[in-house]
């Protein structure tokens, strides 16, 4: 078991590993101290086994033993999702009129310890949010207006203060949340005080037919 392998892990992973190995931890331990403490631990065999699972993603599929009823669904490697290396991808997905979901894969091999920042731009390129992402690989972002477009970038602040972009996302569009003002007159013109439209809209406001209660909440 090598200190070199441990150094490649993040602090969070090291702390998790240390906990598993019952290595006594202090909240203020630096990465170096963590590595030292783990190395000093006597459970070398357990560490090697754990490390195999925690190796840097190499794009290969792991082969742990399968268990349970679904074990025979396929060869053992089917139990595990692939790990990706060398891929950099940032994607924005719409969730509803006010929320988008961002996820990313960042090839950190060239980036070392840089603090990465997720920047979200609303329409007309206004910078809306600047989020320090740490070790996270996804984020839900609240937007102030529905029915808009947004895009984002991940990057880091260089020594000279410039923001160096590392990943660029697609443009996402959130849904509208209410009826359009266009066509308001046409929709109301020529009818009595309620129209098919306002009646629908009132019923729409009063109840939520998509609440699939008892009947389908028990669905498979």
């Amino acid at each position, binding site marked *: 078991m090598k200190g070199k392998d441990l150094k490649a892990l993040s602090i969070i992973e090291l702390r998790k590993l240390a906990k598993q190995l019952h290595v006594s931890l202090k909240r203020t331990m630096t990465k170096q101290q963590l590595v030292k403490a783990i190395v000093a631990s006597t459970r070398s065999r357990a560490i090697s086994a754990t490390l195999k699972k925690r190796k840097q993603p190499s794009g290969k599929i792991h082969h742990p033993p399968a268990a349970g009823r679904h074990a025979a669904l396929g060869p053992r490697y089917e139990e595990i999702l692939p790990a990706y290396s060398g891929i950099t991808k940032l994607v924005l997905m719409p969730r509803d009129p006010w929320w988008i979901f961002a996820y990313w894969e960042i090839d950190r091999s060239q980036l070392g310890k840089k603090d990465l920042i997720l920047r979200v731009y609303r329409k007309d390129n206004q910078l809306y949010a600047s989020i320090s992402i740490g070790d996270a690989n*996804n984020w839900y972002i609240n937007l102030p207006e529905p029915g808009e477009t947004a895009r984002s970038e991940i990057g880091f602040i260089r020594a000279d203060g410039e923001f160096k972009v590392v990943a660029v996302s697609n443009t996402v569009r959130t849904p509208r949340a209410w009826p359009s003002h266009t066509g308001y007159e046409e929709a109301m013109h020529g009818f009595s005080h309620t129209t098919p439209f306002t009646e629908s809209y009132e019923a729409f406001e009063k109840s939520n037919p998509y609440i699939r209660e008892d009947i389908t909440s028990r669905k498979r």
Partner: protein
Amino acid sequence: MKGYLAIVLHSHLPYVRHPEFNDFLEEDWLYEAITETYIPLLDVFTRLVSDRVDFHITLSLTPTLLEMLSDDLLMKRYGRHLQKLIELSEKEIQRTHDDPAINPLSRMYDDRFKHYMDMFKNRYRGNIITGFKEFMDAGMIEIVTSAATHAYLPLLIDEKWQDVQIHTGVDTYRNHLGTSPEGIWLPENAYTEGIDRILNRYGIKYTFLDAHGLLNASVRPVYGVYAPICSEEGVNFFGRDMQSAKQVWSAKEGYPGDYDYREFYRDVGYDLGFEYVKPYLHSDGSRSNLGIKYYRITGQTDQKQPYVPQWARNKVQAHAGNFVFNREKHIEYLSGIMDRKPLIVAAYDAELFGHWWFEGPEFIEHVFRKIHEINGSVKTITPGMYLKEYPENQIAQPSQSSWGDKGYHEVWLNGTNDWIYKHVHIAQDRMDELMHLSPVSRKQQRAIDQALRELLLAQSSDWPFIMNSGTMVEYAKKRFISHIARFTYLYEQIKNNRIDHRFLEGIESRDNIFPWIQYRNYAI
């Protein structure tokens, strides 16, 4: 006659087929749906036709469902499943012969199962798609298609893959039904701008959205949801009417909760002695629903009373009458303020009728009979027929939406399932790569076709839906992970041109959906 009612039943099941096991619990979803919804509906249509009752209804039969209904292995297993039910109902008749409340019910099930077996084996020769096609050719049913594996299209993000899902859905429809579809049921009615362009590319003239998909369109629809709108791409969008939806859907306000209707959760698979039902359960011995249920809802109580078919039948007729009465009143009101005939689109999941709500198919039957009998303000219609009468509709771009809980994408994108999308999208990118590989050997081409099948199966919206619902989550996770893993393994083998032939044959025989698919037919 002042206006129209279009009843739309969406029939979908995810592709579940496990040849590696003798029997598999999740295959039951298909067998239950056939026994409790599809055959009963065909039975209803048959009775209506023989009584010369005029009716029109729209059904979506998704590609995965069409593939399963024509799969030899699954249909053989279905025959076996139904045979066992018949055996059990015969034993039940013996067991309950002293019980005047339950014995007639055992006989009722026995008669039903035997009748359905006759329909399945003799009339439809093991393929009930023929039944739907018969009614389609006779003009009573309009069948619409859906996306290949019922993918949640807006969350695929990449339009290329929305295209592949729709393209494959159209092809599957053509293969099984012999004509081209005019309409499509978008999975979960999930829509985002741009999908209309794709639909138009494949000759699709219309689809369905939940009410707010129309109401929140780029221009306010003049007729609310009571007439379709048409996007700039020439595709028409029909909006779902909430009132007719709630009368049937709502657990609180809807008909299915009536105390005289059959109780879903008192099934002999759980109620009877283990040794007695064991031969009818799965080989792993876990208790499951068998479809023989003897109790009625009775009330907000655990003391369920025996089901009384005549009382249930009376309620069905009353509820059907009520439903038709409400639609008549609604149409009369709308036609008074609209300058064209209003259309009410009543759209539901098909499995509500028969599976969740035992009396559902009879309810539909009585709705059609009532409408025919009173010959009043309402006539039944299909969207295709409505468009023939009104080919020009208000131009508006529908709003991004779905019919899911809360009206947008949250059900399929939340803490329980958001982790899947990275894998789906990266697999999509990689599939794109494979599809452009050149030069490529025949073996590689065959493997690329299979990789496409794995990707399509991984894109299924069923997996994130199940993960969100909290039941059968492990199965959904295993399915999703195994398709991504198989895809990735194939991807690496293809890129290195080192194809493991035994592995390829193995997954070809398991994940054999769309056996005719060829990646080279997709222009992306």
